């Protein structure tokens, strides 16, 4: 991530801390204290309250939602140390970052690396302000794990491309304003025929159909492009450079998805405590179901080893100034554990853990059912577990390409 040089002296940092405190006192609406719902990001259609909007605008204007991005593109221009101080002060104030979504997690960092000056000035500031919702146009019906097999065609029409094809599993496509898309500009070469294109989701010829999932929710869409005209200035990088750019973006995605751990840890009580409530303890102070107790504690221990690993990956990456090798195991390990946890929750709660809707259940229980089903996606999207294994074997262990 781009950030300015770090000449931070103690005095500088102290004065920045004062500035952060003053800004939060002035701008963070106290009624939003601790109300951040991490599960609903910018992708969701929920209405913003006036207070939420004011907070988003304030943070967006300041650029502090993307604290270390360069100021000239609307970022905060903070040093890493300053950003950490801001985080600390926000936590103290119960404040949260209202700027998020795929623009922040994936596209922004990629644009900073590959886009032209004009593109950076056009696209990054609205991301920093949380004004534009981005979606990802990667997967197609015949290009899942074999992503480079994508067929959506962008035909050169002089001053614009004419785009035809279908994308699928477009997260939040129904709410998105724009789409960063991998398209084919040439059929001559599988990988070098791919380009990275920014497409307006409101343009004529773009059609979005939500896909109903086993969870009953529709977080993904099918996206159809029929003779969609896309200006040439929306090509990022060179024609044919899309695979390189697209893969780089996936690294950002993976880093964020592996934080899947954080999500589960956040809204979760330790399983032992949940089990105590549903199953009860025997006279010896142990969970009344001896076999389930063993499963739970085994899970908790493996889970804690995972959390320690996520922390270690962060520390190593910081120290080395680059992504550490073990980042590659986080997605695979974290998603597997997340699924195991959801299954264990059902085992603990019995049929109360399978409530679909209506009377007789706590909201938490109903949410759990949906989360269990939605969670099955985590080992499939963002590079399935099998693809992660290929990556580990080839890139880290140096085992030969099996293809």
């Amino acid at each position, binding site marked *: 991530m781009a950030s300015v040089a770090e000449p931070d002296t103690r005095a500088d940092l102290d004065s920045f801390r004062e500035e952060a405190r003053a800004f939060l006192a002035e701008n963070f609406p106290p009624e939003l204290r601790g109300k951040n719902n991490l599960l609903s990001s910018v992708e969701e259609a929920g209405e913003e309250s006036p207070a939420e909007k004011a907070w988003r605008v304030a943070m967006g204007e300041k650029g502090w939602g993307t604290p270390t991005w360069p100021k000239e593109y609307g970022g905060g221009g903070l040093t890493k140390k300053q950003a950490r101080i801001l985080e600390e002060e926000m936590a103290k104030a119960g404040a949260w970052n209202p700027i998020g979504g795929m623009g922040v997690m994936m596209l922004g960092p990629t644009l900073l690396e590959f886009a032209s000056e004009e593109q950076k000035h056009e696209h990054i500031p609205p991301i920093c302000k949380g004004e534009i919702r981005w979606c990802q146009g990667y997967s197609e019906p015949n290009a899942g794990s074999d992503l480079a097999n994508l067929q959506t065609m962008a035909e050169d029409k002089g001053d614009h491309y004419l785009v035809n094809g279908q994308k699928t599993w477009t997260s939040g496509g129904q709410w998105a304003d724009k789409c960063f898309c991998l398209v084919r500009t040439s059929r001559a070469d599988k990988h070098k025929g791919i380009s990275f294109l920014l497409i307006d989701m409101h343009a004529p010829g773009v059609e979005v159909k939500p896909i109903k999932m086993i969870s009953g929710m529709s977080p993904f869409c099918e996206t159809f492009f029929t003779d969609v005209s896309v200006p040439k200035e929306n090509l990022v990088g060179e024609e044919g450079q899309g695979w390189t750019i697209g893969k780089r973006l996936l690294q950002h995605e993976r880093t964020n998805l592996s934080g899947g751990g954080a999500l589960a840890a956040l809204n979760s009580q330790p399983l032992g405590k949940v089990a105590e409530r549903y199953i009860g303890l025997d006279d010896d102070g142990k969970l009344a179901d001896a076999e389930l107790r063993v499963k739970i504690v085994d899970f908790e221990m493996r889970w804690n080893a995972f959390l320690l690993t996520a922390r270690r990956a962060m520390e190593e990456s910081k120290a080395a100034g680059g992504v550490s090798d073990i980042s590659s195991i986080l997605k695979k390990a974290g998603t597997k554990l997340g699924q195991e946890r959801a299954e264990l929750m059902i085992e603990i709660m019995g049929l109360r853990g399978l409530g679909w809707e209506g009377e007789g259940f706590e909201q938490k229980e109903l949410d759990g059912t949906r989360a269990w089903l939605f969670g099955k996606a985590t080992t499939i999207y963002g590079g399935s577990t099998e693809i992660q294994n290929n990556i580990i074997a080839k890139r880290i262990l140096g085992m*030969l390409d099996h293809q």
Partner: protein
Amino acid sequence: MAVLNDEQEMLRDMAREWTKNEHPVDAWRKVRDAGQPFDADAWGAMAEMGWAGIIIPEEHGGSDFGWLSLGLVIEELGKSLAASPLVASALAASAIVLGGSEEQKAEFLPRLATGELIGTLAFDEGPRHTGLNASTSVHDGRLTGTKAFVHEASRAGLFVVLAQDGVYLVEKGKGISVSKRMLADMRDHAEIDFNDAPAQKLAAGGDDLAHKILDRARVLTAAEMLGMCQAVFDTTLDYLKQRVQFNQVLSSFQALQHRMADLYTEIELTRSAVEAGLQAIDSGFAVSEAATLAKARANDTLHLVSKEGIQLHGGIGMTDEYSVGFYLKRARVLEAAWGSSSHLRDAYARMKSY
């Protein structure tokens, strides 16, 4: 790998170079073939490099580099199955650091730091670790009881013994008989009968002294096991890259790639738990929990890796000529030490009040 300071990095590199160049796994093979349960020359070299004093305070002749530092060295030694009493002796020293009087520290720590005195823990009284319960008793400074499967027993000059009412130091000498117990790992184990052996209590460590020592034993053993995991994994990976069947190297088969990716993942998760255990001892925060986690992860992962190591090597892995079998045999001994996985899981659940 945890983020290390310069001192730790130097120590780790030194241990890595030494085991690689001076003391690879073939050194253990020679020791075993000679019918010895330990490697006296290697111990001398380790002592000279100061490894016996890593967790001993400077005023008593150690370097006081801390547990993460010691763990880094132990991990490297685990890679080559170095038959040294370093783990046992460091644990004995830590018992004195934690619970010894000034006189006891002055008497024993300097000699433990130079390696001229070897110490070991004598806690368990049966083939399985079942907690900190001992029938060994002490009357008028005389200790009586039987300790089973004591590590590095035949060369130890100092025993740290768990008795009913606390932890005692017993020097080798009168009232002690040592009976060798040959286990599959061919290392130095013995049953020890203490019969009115003169004993002095480690009285300064508080009621939970034995527990603190046990925590350290778990973490340090886990560090050795982590090294073993890594060695089996690396050896197996090398083998898969060389062995050709169906006109292809085995490493090109996806079924094998994914198994190796799984093992890699488990080892890295375990590494985090082990390093966190070492760091917990250095910081003094939530040590028991971290130690229990470290040993349980090391147990399960080494169990898996040592089995897979054999299977992935195929028949050649079952020959005595290859080293992977050594690790399998040592693995099970260490898995049983200081708590099997089931014992540790139960302990962890109790810590969490369920």
